[in-house]
């Protein structure tokens, strides 16, 4: 009786949660059936999980910045995806340059093969072949994106700092399109190969094939995340940021250096976005002017799921979204595989409708 009453309450108060729980149970059951039967081999399953983790970590990495700016500056930054794209293009321009400068003209390399520049197979960038150029590219990607973020904040957002969230959001859409098509102006509008996949070693771990680039991504992403954790927990500025993410107005009256915190937020968020964009190209092997935009909705999904303002939430949300989008491929086979992305978007809409404070329930952990 007691149980029944509780169940009825849950159904009334949290209908979304109940639906999700039931659906998850059904899917897990079906998954077990598939694994035990011969619908799905363990290796294939492992492959999906690994892919999901890799993309999930990148989404989480990029999501940290979006989450922080959302809560500290009070608007959804639709240009965040294009910061990611610029991170990718700036970083890979330099990685290309360093990897091929001994054989090719600087111009074609800097434009990552635009026009009649050298082909990726000829330049041969990969973590094993040209590790230094890859690292240098990462550093530039971070630095360049930080620069862009600060510059845009100064020129665009600071003059309208006190405007409402929608005004800022619309301005950010303007920034997004300007940034995105500046890439097209300098580089190109198609999708182009970048890394030399043929020379990337891969390892077979119990049937799951993992390549060196994916390993690199996981290592770098984890290092960056730990770094952010330490920064937020240990440093004074980090504490101020957490305070502001928690309650902006309160933080303001308690004498926190608001502009300083905002600057740090952009540095952190922009830098991580740049790194994420650079690393996305490392796993995909190709680069395109709209790669950040294509990721942005997934990142929004992660951030909203994790609770806006929460750094750890963004990371967990990223992993959930990454895994969901890859694991959905277990069911979405053949022509339906094109629905992996819509599934992730759908998941986000669901969270927004039924748990707008995030799946961890509004507890800000920063």
């Amino acid at each position, binding site marked *: 009786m007691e149980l029944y009453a509780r169940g009825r309450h849950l159904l009334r108060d949290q209908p979304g949660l109940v639906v999700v729980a039931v659906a998850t149970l059904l899917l897990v059951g079906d998954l077990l059936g598939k694994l035990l039967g011969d619908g799905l081999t363990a290796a294939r399953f492992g492959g999906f999980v690994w892919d999901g983790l890799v993309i999930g970590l990148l989404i989480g990495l990029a999501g940290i910045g979006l989450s922080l700016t959302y809560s500290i500056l009070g608007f*959804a930054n639709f240009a965040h995806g294009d910061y990611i794209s610029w991170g990718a293009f700036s970083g890979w321009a330099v990685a290309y340059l360093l990897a091929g400068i001994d054989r090719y003209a600087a111009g074609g390399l800097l434009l990552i093969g635009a026009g009649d520049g050298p082909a990726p197979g000829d330049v041969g960038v990969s973590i094993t072949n040209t590790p230094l150029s890859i690292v240098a590219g990462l550093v530039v990607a971070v630095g360049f994106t930080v620069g862009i973020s600060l510059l845009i904040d100064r020129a665009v957002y600071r003059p309208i700092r006190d405007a409402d969230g929608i005004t800022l959001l*619309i*301005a950010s859409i303007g920034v997004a399109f300007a940034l995105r098509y500046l890439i097209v102006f300098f580089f190109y509008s198609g999708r182009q190969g970048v890394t030399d996949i043929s020379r990337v070693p891969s390892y077979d771990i119990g049937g799951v094939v993992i390549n060196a680039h994916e390993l690199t991504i996981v290592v770098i992403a984890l290092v960056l995340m730990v770094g952010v954790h330490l920064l937020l927990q240990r440093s004074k500025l980090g504490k101020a940021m957490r305070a502001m993410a928690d309650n902006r107005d309160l933080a303001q009256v308690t004498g926190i250096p608001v502009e300083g915190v905002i600057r740090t937020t952009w540095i952190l968020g922009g830098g991580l976005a740049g790194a994420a964009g650079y690393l996305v190209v490392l796993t995909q092997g190709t680069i395109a002017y709209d790669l950040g935009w294509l990721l942005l909705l997934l990142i929004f999904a992660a951030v909203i799921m994790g609770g806006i303002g929460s750094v750890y939430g963004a990371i967990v949300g990223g992993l959930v979204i990454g895994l969901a989008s890859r694991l959905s491929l277990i069911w979405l086979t053949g022509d339906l595989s094109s629905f992996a992305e819509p599934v992730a978007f759908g998941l986000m809409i669901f969270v927004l409708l039924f748990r707008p404070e995030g799946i961890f329930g509004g507890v800000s952990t920063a």
Partner: protein
Amino acid sequence: MSSDQFQTGRLTQFRELLERSDAALVLTAMAAFYLLFLGIGAILNYDVAGLISILGQVTFFTAVYALIVLALNLHWGYAGLFNIGIAGFMAVGVYTMAMLTAPPTGSPPGLGLPVAVGIVGGMLAAALVGLVTALPALRLRADYLAIVTVAISEIIRLTYNSPAFSTFTLPGGIALGTGGASGIGTVPSNPVQAIYYVDPSSAASGTTPIGAAIFGFFEAVFGVVRSAVIVDLTYGLVLAVVVFLVYTLLARVGNSPFGRVLKAIREDEVVAKSLGKDTNRFKIKTFMLGCALMGLAGVLWQGFGTGAVYPQAFRPELTFYIFIAVIIGGAGSNTGSVLGGAVFANLLFLLPQYLPNIIEQTFSIQADPNNFIAAVGPIAAGEIAPLLGYILNQRLPALRFVFVGVLLVYLMQNRPEGLLGHRTETAAAVNLSEGHTAAEQTGSDLTAPEGGVDDE
């Protein structure tokens, strides 16, 4: 001296006319745009048929932009609903129309229904998708609504893009399809063709009596033998009539108790509720009506206007263009929406397409480098032509996006109310002061109305 004064007097009179009469404002703007593009045609040495064609284009793009901006203004300007999934709702409208009307023998096959059924079906489908979106999403904060609508628009586009529904069979064995990434090429022809051709889908089928008369007139008077430009111009004019009808419809919505509630919701939803208004119902109805109009705009623009329906036409860039147009005009004003649509369509969309030809013709630029470095390299040697060639021939569409993005930022910083958004139109079906005199009452402790307005 005195003639100068006379002229300024005329000018002020004209400005007052523009401020008083919306029709005069819109007509003046359109006259200016027509003149501008006729001038461009003249510079480019177009013949009469070419000039008619350019006028047809101006009319078409002005009308379709005005139409879609009016629909968005209903959402955002009237009800404060921040919908950035416009492209998706347009796609639903035009895809539904195309799937209902495409011939069953086509590839992908359609249902072969009459065009009118297709148009109504497209609007209904868009309204239904709007309802499905609105029912849950209207409870959300404005920024969440934005994220949800843009996600839905992408889901719609990816669904149409997916090979999964490229062709499928309905229960009952009727085949149907979206055509996947390549879309639907067999869209029914523009209904205006029926006026001119015996078989509306083919210009070769022979002309109707009306067609023969009009084509004959143009041939005799202007020497125009390309009948297609006349058909296009006619379609543009039909669209202008549609815009007028939609404008009237929305003006009625605004000037009514319904519109009054929307205005109240936009300002303070709690107050609207505390005066007994079921605000959700108002918002859902408004959202659905707006979506239906977006579906209609999709049908008239990408359906009959472009003649081919494919998923890439409904990327978020389209939504972005429409948003810029509504912000230029000023959210909240229908006349502003038409003006914003006209300004965007002509100055930001069409003009850049003619600009390269004009510049190249005037400065005779031949260079056409295919990458940025090759374009800027020669500057060291004092040659600027390669850079211009690169910009004009290779990257003008990209630069247009950059420019429009910067413009949007500028507007948000300096003129978020747009051209006419500051205007206030009273939301009532009758003149509320008729028979009463508010201003003449003495004892007013407020500043005289004139002083108050001029200050701002």
